[in-house]
């Protein structure tokens, strides 16, 4: 592992959180395809099998529904499973287990059984991958009652949020923006505290416009905000981190001050997180809005093969264009 003083990549940070969780609680287990001997296809689970053995670090057969079903059963019987879907694009095989059981067992058994389960999955475009390796389908999970869905944007937040997800008494979908996996480094203190699931985070203060994003697009949002400062547009940037349950208060409070809301994410716009965020703000701060809410998202299409994936993704230019237009409105 990289020395913490150098700063950790998101891969290193998640790996460290996994090592810490495995060391803290010997009912914690990791399961998935290639997570053991191979250390995961992105090396996120590197070294775990050497330290904790094959009973707790399970190289499973190739079956996503089986992996999640197994993990649900383990969670019901006193273990703390952390399942990996190799790519979010392959997690759909497990949707039935997640919707039918992970999200419902507490409710169905009136609390007699619970599912303290984390399902990790890399998601999102921008790494020149094959078909099914670039989608952003967080609303599949955000839409399900009984499920929490978390998306960290930076290494330190990934570390803190994964710890929170592992401690959570309910199932958490933990989506990792793979475009950020090795894009940046952040130092993480030895005594770093777990984050709080269900709270949004103001990452840049500003008074003219509230720019809300998460995952890999947060960095484009921040870049847009920094460069627009030169045009005297002062932007507040919020990283929502938790898709569900959404912390609308933090966003609404900001919009109450700026009067402008721009939402950026890479999922297709229709029925997406941007719509939900906008609605929650309308419910709370409609009269504070000085201009119509805008969103810069992907498009209602399949992510093109990699030569054109950047065409699909929200660009910094598009974000800046939307912000400027809102200031001119």
């Amino acid at each position, binding site marked *: 592992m990289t020395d913490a003083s150098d700063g950790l990549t998101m891969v290193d940070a998640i790996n460290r959180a996994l090592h810490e969780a495995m060391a803290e609680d010997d009912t914690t287990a990791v399961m998935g395809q290639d997570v053991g001997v191979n250390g995961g296809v992105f090396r996120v689970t590197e070294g775990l099998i050497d330290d904790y053995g094959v009973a707790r670090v399970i190289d499973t057969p190739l079956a996503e529904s089986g992996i999640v079903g197994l993990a649900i059963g383990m969670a019901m019987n006193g273990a703390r499973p952390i399942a990996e879907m190799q790519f979010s694009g392959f997690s759909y095989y497990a949707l039935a287990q997640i919707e039918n059981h992970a999200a419902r067992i507490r409710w169905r058994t009136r609390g007699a059984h619970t599912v303290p389960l984390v399902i990790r999955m890399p998601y999102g475009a921008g790494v020149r991958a094959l078909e099914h390796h670039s989608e952003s389908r967080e609303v599949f999970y955000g839409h399900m009652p009984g499920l929490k869905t978390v998306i960290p944007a930076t290494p330190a937040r990934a570390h803190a949020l994964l710890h929170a997800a592992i401690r959570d008494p309910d199932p958490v979908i933990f989506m990792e923006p793979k475009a950020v996996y090795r894009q940046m480094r952040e130092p993480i203190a030895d005594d770093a505290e777990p984050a709080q699931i269900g709270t949004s985070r103001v990452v840049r203060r500003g008074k003219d416009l509230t720019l809300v994003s998460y995952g890999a697009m947060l960095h484009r949002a921040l870049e847009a905000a920094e460069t627009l400062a030169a045009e005297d547009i002062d932007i507040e940037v919020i990283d929502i981190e938790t898709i569900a349950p959404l912390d609308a208060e933090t966003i609404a409070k900001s919009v109450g001050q700026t009067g402008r809301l721009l939402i950026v994410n890479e999922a297709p716009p229709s029925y997406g997180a941007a719509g939900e965020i906008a609605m929650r703000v309308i419910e709370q701060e409609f009269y504070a809005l000085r201009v119509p809410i805008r969103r810069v998202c992907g498009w209602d299409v399949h992510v093109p093969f990699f030569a*054109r994936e950047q065409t699909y993704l929200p660009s910094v230019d598009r974000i800046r264009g939307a912000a400027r237009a809102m200031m001119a409105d």
Partner: protein
Amino acid sequence: MTAYLSWPDPKFEPHEALAPDGTLLEDDEIDIGTLEQIYKTMLCARRFDERLLKLQRQGALGTFAPIKGQEAAQIGAAACLREDDWLVPSFRETGAALWRGADMADLLVTLAGWNAGNDLPEGARTLPDTVPVASQLPIAAGIAHAGRLRGEDAIVMACFGDGATSEGDFHEALNFAGVLEAPVVFLCQNNGWAISTPRARQTASQTLAQKAHAYGIPAAQVDGNDALAVMQVTQEAVALARDKGQPAMIEALTYRMEVHTTADDPTRYRDEGEVEEWQDRDPIERVRKLLVARSQLDDAMQEALEEEIRDRIDAAWKEAKDRISRLEETPGTAMFDHIFAEPTAPLRRQRKEFSDQEEAAND
């Protein structure tokens, strides 16, 4: 010992026809002409694979799954299909696709990251790659059943690997094909590894072929590096499917000589000695030896063949590069194509928004 429970007792002897030294194991009448064609396609597929790997390492292509070592398993099987039969691949069937007439330039354009490489002729019966493991298999049963409904005698060959046999879709597909009598040949290329998971850790079953028996479907194991044996077994399965609507499964025992995909590093999980052992069982070499022994091939012919293949690949890459340069000039609005038969109102609006922004950016 168990009193009431019985253990599985699979009795599969992998069928072999051609020894690694190129000699025939039985005094069969063989179709040397077809074997010669298979040889040429195997060699072409190997050289194409090598070129893809080189281009990928240079950054010209994206991630792909090499087929090295599996040429006989997939080309020997595909050679038993008629033109109107279907080939439903996973993502490691470049060899089978080439046998079926796939255009190398198309494949290159796709691997360079352009959807346009998948511009197939309408109704094409060699489908593009399926990435989500095993998901193509129930679809193969559906294609086969619909063919029967329409009175065709075309059959479907569905390709997958050892890892796919763990997915629910594999089991559902075999079960459906069995119940519906859908004419599908399920071709499993057991190459020993599902990324880092060895065959022994994929399933506690002794063989993969025996799984078909659970669904009332006949099955065979075959030496997948033996093109002749693969052809013989596949011919039987194809005839059963075509004449009787009976699906069958073939487990071709082969080996992934290369990386899982170019994003993979097998030195982390497998012993290089294993790769070397399989080197001696190279599927192309043994057919070459047979052809030489039968005076169908000599050094001069081999050299000419290598040159012809090299020229074809060079020409395909040149064409692909030309097409890619032209594609780079096309507007980004192409991503809105082929979502529906008729673009919906939201898509038309988004397309316009996109192209307005693109124009503004170019001003």
